[in-house]
């Protein structure tokens, strides 16, 4: 349980064998390629071979898009929980059927594009139909804008303007004009105005004060009714075409699995081409560099001896540590905590793997905050079902494991606090037998009645947690040769802590003068050491500010950190209280109306709904607050983050998994 030791790999391989070598390495799944480090002079002799990455990327995207389209038009019916199928690595590396799959994907995408265009055409036709509605009563063809002597104007007024007023204004211009009301709706009245051609400009001027909006129908011939019917025909044709396109996509649903496999094959091809992009070529020979876990060297050697290649590995020097990718070596228990570590940031190479230190605290704190036998059982069951059905790997596996261990701790703490869906056993027993004197499930402590005890317990656990972090920090400092740092920073705090404990023992338990003096002496030694340590690297007046800074940081930092653990008690109590209230509400109908089918049905409904809400809230809330205690308080004491994750060349398909060796 530590950070995996990495070795730097340098590799030269004949160009003709490169593809085959990379295929072997992706099967092996333990080498991460990186940019070649090489001096400028040597670089001149090398060049980058042509890259196929862009083409591979677009193939991969096209296949993924086709799968998404297929899923949209012909959703796949599959059981809710199922693991993706597993195939041999060779199947994923076989590119022979990729061409056919790409052609199929092209057909699916083309049909999808056509459907989108049909959608646009349909809305255009609908808009035209809409605009024709007011003109349906008009028999005049819409393309008639003039006769031999007259001009014809189509348009609308706001509905509040009475047509007679417009007629008056028109009469003032010329007698040879007429206004025909075609139709009216909520917003406007639609009219046709006919006037002699000579009077048209004046007429338009006269109409302007009435907000007359002229309307024209370019490209349309015949009366509105006929145009509208034509739109209707076009819409029907488009709907038929759309249906045909959708049917053609649905017909291809039988080849969905082939398409998915092809998408993952394209992904493997893309991964390989990205790796080979990192190589530099002399013409016939390719030079590559990368990292591999030291323990996999024998396996790599076994593969490489089959090729015409030269290679060497070496331990990274300390200056190279920031470039070394980080992988954590975990067992089944600590693997669960990868979720937390990876979300925060991996530890820097050459420092401490926090997972084994964090695991017992994380799981214990989670159990304490959730503390309910019923909730614990649900979590364990959910985790086990998911692990069996989904056969998760990587991040999802860590999540399931965390859920499982958290569930075990929750149930165990539930036994200690006597909580089973809060206090439902107590409530039910007293419902059926009101005279019962049963006090509820056995408990060691109850968050509701011993809340002070639980609070102090939380703070003590917090102290333990923080001190574990400090032990790690001190050990790391000593390993790096900074013994003074460990003595003055962690050491002086521990002396202060011992002093404080002595003082507490004196005040609360023993009351002895000798102990009192000893406690003060220890506190003074600790204080002086702390101040000296803070000022030891500063000069002149800097020593004073450093000392004040140290007092402030130690006092506020430590108190803040320890008090922060009170959230353990707060969440433990809150979950219990909310659950208890739901139980009380659920049991009320039965209490007031007697035990019968309806009141018990009401009990079940309220109980299930209420606890579902409380469970979901606590599941997330406890995780977040546990996370905070680890990442802020605990990591703050020792953690050096900034490791970049180890991403070896391996299969990473979305739909199909490669069998693990």
């Amino acid at each position, binding site marked *: 349980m530590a950070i995996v030791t990495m070795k730097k790999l340098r590799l030269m391989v004949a160009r003709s064998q490169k593809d085959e070598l990379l295929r072997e390495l992706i099967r092996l799944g333990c080498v991460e390629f990186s940019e070649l480090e090489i001096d400028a002079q040597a670089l001149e002799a090398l060049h980058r071979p042509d890259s196929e990455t862009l083409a591979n990327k677009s193939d991969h995207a096209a296949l993924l898009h086709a799968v998404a389209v297929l899923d949209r038009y012909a959703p796949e019916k599959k059981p809710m929980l199922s693991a993706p199928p597993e195939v041999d690595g060779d199947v994923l590396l076989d590119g022979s059927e990729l061409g056919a799959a790409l052609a199929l994907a092209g057909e699916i995408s083309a049909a999808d594009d056509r459907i989108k265009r049909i959608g646009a055409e349909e809305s255009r036709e609908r808009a035209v139909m809409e605009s024709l509605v007011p003109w349906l009563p008009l028999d005049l063809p819409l393309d008639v804008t003039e006769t031999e002597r007259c001009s014809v104007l189509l348009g609308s007024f706001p509905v509040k303007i009475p047509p007679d007023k417009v007629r008056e204004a028109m009469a003032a211009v010329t007698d040879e004009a007429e206004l025909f009301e075609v139709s009216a709706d909520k917003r406007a009245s639609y009219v046709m105005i006919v006037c002699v051609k000579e009077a048209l400009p004046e007429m338009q001027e006269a109409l302007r004060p009435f907000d007359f909006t002229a309307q024209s129908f370019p490209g349309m011939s015949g009366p509105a009714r006929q145009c509208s019917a034509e739109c209707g025909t076009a819409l029907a044709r488009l709907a038929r075409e759309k249906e045909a396109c959708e049917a053609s996509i649905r017909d291809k649903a039988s080849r969905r699995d082939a398409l998915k496999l092809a998408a993952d094959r394209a992904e493997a091809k893309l991964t390989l081409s990205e790796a080979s992009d990192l190589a530099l070529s002399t013409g016939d020979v390719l030079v590559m560099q990368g990292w591999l876990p030291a323990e996999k060297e024998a396996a790599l050697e076994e593969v490489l001896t089959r090729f015409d290649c030269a290679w060497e590995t070496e331990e990274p020097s300390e200056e190279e540590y920031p470039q070394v990718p980080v992988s954590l070596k975990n067992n089944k228990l600590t693997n669960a905590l990868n979720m937390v570590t990876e979300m925060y940031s991996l530890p820097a190479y050459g420092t401490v793997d926090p997972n084994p230190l964090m695991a017992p605290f994380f799981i214990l704190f989670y159990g304490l905050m959730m503390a309910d036998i019923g909730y614990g059982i649900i979590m364990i069951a959910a985790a086990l079902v998911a692990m069996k059905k989904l056969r998760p790997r990587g991040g999802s596996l860590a999540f399931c494991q965390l859920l499982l261990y958290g569930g075990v701790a929750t149930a165990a703490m539930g036994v200690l606090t006597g909580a089973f869906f809060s206090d439902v056993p107590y409530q039910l027993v007293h419902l059926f037998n009101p005279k019962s004197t049963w006090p509820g499930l056995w408990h060691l402590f109850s968050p*509701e009645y011993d*809340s002070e005890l639980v609070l102090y317990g939380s703070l003590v656990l917090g102290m333990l947690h923080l001190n574990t972090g400090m032990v790690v920090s001190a050990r790391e400092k000593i390993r790096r040769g900074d013994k003074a740092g460990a003595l003055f920073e962690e050491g002086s705090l521990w002396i202060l802590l011992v002093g404080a404990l002595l003082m507490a023992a004196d005040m609360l338990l023993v009351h002895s003068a000798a102990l009192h003096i000893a406690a003060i002496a220890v506190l003074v030694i600790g204080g002086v050491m702390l101040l000296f340590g803070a000022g030891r690297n500063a000069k002149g007046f800097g020593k004073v500010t450093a000392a004040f800074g140290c007092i402030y940081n130690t006092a506020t930092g430590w108190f803040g950190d320890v008090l922060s653990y009170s*959230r353990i008690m*707060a*969440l433990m*109590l*809150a979950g219990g*209280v*909310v659950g208890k*209230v739901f139980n*009380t*509400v659920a049991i009320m109908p039965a209490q007031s109306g007697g035990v019968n089918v309806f009141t018990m049905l009401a009990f079940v409904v309220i109980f299930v709904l209420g606890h579902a*809400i409380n469970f979901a*809230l606590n599941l*997330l*809330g406890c995780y*977040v*607050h546990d*996370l*905070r205690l680890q990442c802020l308080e605990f990591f703050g004491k020792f953690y050096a983050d900034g490791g970049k994750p180890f991403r070896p060349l391996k299969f990473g398909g979305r739909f199909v998994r490669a069998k693990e060796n």
Partner: protein
Amino acid sequence: MEFLNTIGGGALALLGAAIAAALACVGSAKGTGIAGEAGAGLVSEDPSKSGKALVLQVIPGTQGLYGFVIFFLAFNKVSASVASLTVAQGLQIVSACLPIALGGLLSAIAQGKVAAASINILAKKPDDWTKGMIMCVIVEFYAILCLLASFLMLGAINI
């Protein structure tokens, strides 16, 4: 004091229970409303995200629940003796109800804003939407503390 006596302890106690439920519920209504507006905008573009948007929308709803829990406990405590409560007892109940009333009101609105912003994460980076959820839950903690404060105070009142 005489004025308070004319009102009576029972009325004060009921007032406390009422503000616990009412203010916390107003906060939740506002919080879920803010998140719901953002969620509706997203769902109009991408209906497949409605489930996740809904989860983010309901997060600021818990304060109303906490308010109701305290209302329920306070009401249960005083319902049998409304007529005989002293003014002091009534004011004790009001004080006990204040944390969740005010904390619930304000934290739900604040959480609603975070939830609305998290819906943006859901829109732009759907894979990272759970991080938004975590940010919402951090606001939740203060509502939980208010719930506990009210709960512990109610427990200490003798009637």
